[in-house]
């Protein structure tokens, strides 16, 4: 199924291809993700939609493992404590690494790293902890290197974890949102999301000594209900394949207020809510 150069402008962007379909033989194009080249022709290697940005041709598939880019905000779960680093599961093909030199030490940013820090690594992050970090760089083997060198990053507390498809979380300027209902949401680009009670920024900074504490704050019943409602909204957005941004979460939350929290996870109500969100999005623009 070879396409000639003139019709490429119109056809490429809406074309659906399967592995092995030839996309173009024009030497002017460069290959991007999801393609391979053979004998001067660019073929698709996955089933998906052809995307063309200037001279770059790539194929985006419906389901993909998260592959990290530098600057991505991710939520990860510590799987292993190794020498001077932690292994973090970020829903990608390889575990990411969080180096001891990339984290903030409690008691102020300027404290020098000591030997006892190495031995006490579990007092910072232990297996199973959830960490909010940013991708700093790549290692030689393609594994991501994370850092938490900012006061808003670090260990996650006071809430619950939701896992969604990575492609539903678009990259944007900010991934930490405070919703009007008093719930904080961390949208990891890798599909891991943390929904928690809102803790004012001032309180976070005042607690510099306890950034690695495992102790949750007191969570009242109404706060718990809001957290559950937001978490359920995110789950239904995920299930019905709607993009997950702070806007869509707020739309879904407002549309859900007429239902009990636990009913949000029944298929009928969830479908209605997804329709409501989509129509509001369409209205918005």
């Amino acid at each position, binding site marked *: 199924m070879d396409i000639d150069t003139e019709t490429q402008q119109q056809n490429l962007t809406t074309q659906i291809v399967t592995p092995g379909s030839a996309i173009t033989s024009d030497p002017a194009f460069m290959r991007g993700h999801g393609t391979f080249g053979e004998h001067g022709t660019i073929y698709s290697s996955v089933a998906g939609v052809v995307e063309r940005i200037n001279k770059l041709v790539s194929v985006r598939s419906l389901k993909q493992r998260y592959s990290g880019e530098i600057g991505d905000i991710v939520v990860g*779960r510590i799987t292993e404590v190794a020498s001077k680093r932690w292994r973090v599961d970020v829903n990608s093909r390889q575990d990411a690494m969080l180096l001891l030199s990339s984290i903030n030490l409690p008691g102020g940013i300027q404290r020098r790293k000591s030997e006892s820090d190495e031995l006490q690594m579990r007092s910072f992050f232990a*297996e*199973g*902890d*959830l960490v909010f970090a940013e991708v700093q760089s790549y290692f030689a083997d393609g594994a991501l290197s994370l850092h938490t060198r900012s006061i808003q990053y670090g*260990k*996650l*507390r*006071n*809430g*619950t*974890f939701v896992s969604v498809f990575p492609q539903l979380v678009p990259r944007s300027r900010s991934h930490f949102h405070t919703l009007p209902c008093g719930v904080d949401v961390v949208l990891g680009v890798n599909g891991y999301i943390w929904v928690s009670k809102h803790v004012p920024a001032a309180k976070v900074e005042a607690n510099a000594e306890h950034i690695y504490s*495992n*102790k*949750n704050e007191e*969570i009242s*019943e109404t706060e*718990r*209900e809001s*957290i*559950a*409602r937001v*978490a*359920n909204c995110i*789950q*239904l957005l995920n*299930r019905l394949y709607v993009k997950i941004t702070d806007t869509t979460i707020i739309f879904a939350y407002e549309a859900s207020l007429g239902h*009990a*929290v*636990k009913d*949000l*996870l*029944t*298929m009928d109500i*969830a479908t209605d809510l997804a329709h409501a969100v989509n129509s509001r999005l369409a209205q918005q623009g």
Partner: protein
Amino acid sequence: MTSLILSPAEQDFITRGVEGGFRADGRGSLDRRQVTLRTNMISQANGSARCRMGHLNVGTDVLVGIKAEVNTWTPGEPDNIGSIVCNVECSPSAAQEFEGRGADELNIELTQLLDRILNGPQSGICLEKLCIIPKQAYWVLHIDALVLDVKGGIVDTLIWATRAALLSTKLPRVVVESIEDEDGNLQSEFDVVDDAEDQIAVEGVNNLPLTVTFNQIGKRYVIDASEQEEAATQARITVAVSPSMDICAVQKSGILRGFSPSLLTEILHTACKIAREEFSRFKDTFAAVLSNQSSNEANTGSTFLGAF
């Protein structure tokens, strides 16, 4: 049952939620998730059912198939009853750690639990009626369960699917002829009638029990735990209750702690109360499935996947 590790903060959040009666997904301690049920999708089996318990049509998914075979009696076996053979297998499609021999322990645990509930008078099934000719031939019901997906709590879904499969099992009718031979002994022969319309149900399946699994988290307990709640569970107890509100089996599992005797008593009483609700929910769901199927007969190609 799967190896999800929670952070201490998550564990504490879930525990405090459960102790306050408000779970992470908004349910109360005794609220159950949605159930989807389909029966008779496997044409080769005498009875089959698929049950899913979860949110948004994603949850713990168990498929049960029942095949009936005729077995010849050998000396030493009881001479007037049929038998039931159970087997449960967890498919690697449910979790990665189930590949290879990873699910062996879990398979054995579930098989023995199912066997404990079904084999014996407490199951309610009339094993005498499964005997074709005493001391000669009897029916063996092979119950094979396949766990397709796990999202917290396999046992309840497994028993629902097994009960639905047994309720929809149809055995071929058997005609027994007895002739007296020269010595005055009665010689019996049987013939299996090969008529799809002329089939009989297994007797006594209406007495089959249902299970309720209680997960202890902190000082309180929940029913129908999600994956995360199961990871936060310290001890678990499964109670099987028959429709006549008799307790058919009780099994505790969990290595972190035990139950105080007062909590145990409370759980046993709550189990009967919940079982009553579960039986009526089962009846309604099963009836809905049957009426749906009679109107969808032509669509055999998509009964397995479609509309499930």
